[in-house]
């Protein structure tokens, strides 16, 4: 799985591409931890843009859960956006869309960066 990072002012966007499964989960976890730490200063908001994410399993959900908790502890707002239908299904069935802010698009996520906390 490839991961791109973008910075928009105080917001860091993480854009995973491909499959977030057992094989890629640990590496993605590290990348999210680095994104949360920032370059010395934590971002105000962390948005995972899932526009290119094709697949997520429970191993991937675990990473989202850990990142959401770490963000909450650090006072960083956390959201995901642009979920493809298959990924959205997994978020809905698992109840994760109740505990993590899910936005339809990047634009909407950027408009309401406050998150669910």
């Amino acid at each position: 799985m490839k991961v791109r990072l973008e910075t928009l002012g105080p917001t860091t966007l993480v854009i995973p591409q491909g499959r977030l499964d057992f094989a890629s989960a640990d590496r993605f976890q590290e990348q999210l931890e680095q994104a949360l730490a920032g370059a010395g200063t934590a971002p105000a908001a962390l948005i995972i843009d899932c526009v290119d994410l094709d697949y997520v399993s429970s191993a991937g959900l675990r990473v989202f859960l850990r990142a959401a908790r770490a963000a909450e502890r650090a006072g960083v707002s956390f959201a995901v956006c642009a979920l493809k239908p298959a990924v959205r299904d997994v978020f809905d069935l698992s109840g994760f869309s109740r505990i993590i802010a899910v936005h339809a698009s990047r634009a909407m996520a950027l408009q309401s960066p406050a998150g669910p906390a």
Partner: protein
Amino acid sequence: MNERRTSVPSEAMQLPILTRFLQEFWSATELPQAEALTFELALEEVFMNVVMHGASADSVPRVEVSVALGDGALTLTVEDDGPAFDPLSLAAPDVTASLDERRVGGLGVFLVRRMMDSVSYHRVGTRNQLRMTKQVAR
């Protein structure tokens, strides 16, 4: 009836091989791509459960996977010769828990049960057998 099977040792590094096995079956049978991810997820969750629960110090179980298409339904069967373990006996996660209280144990099997039309476990001789079936539109 269109059927294929493969087998691998229950090691995490084998997961991409099983995913590819399923994808090749999908291409060969021209099933709708939207359904493929559901079965890829089921296979990952069930296989990783065997990897986590099945190995002992002196042996690595063998996992046999088969897919069979018939009467518009696809059946995915995962068998292993590890110690008896019924993943369906795992407690379902509380999907209404808050962010702080949320636990992830049992989540994979829970997703599989929700996504498949039917899931059953049998201990057959010295083998665990988990069978999952879902209608697939063609």
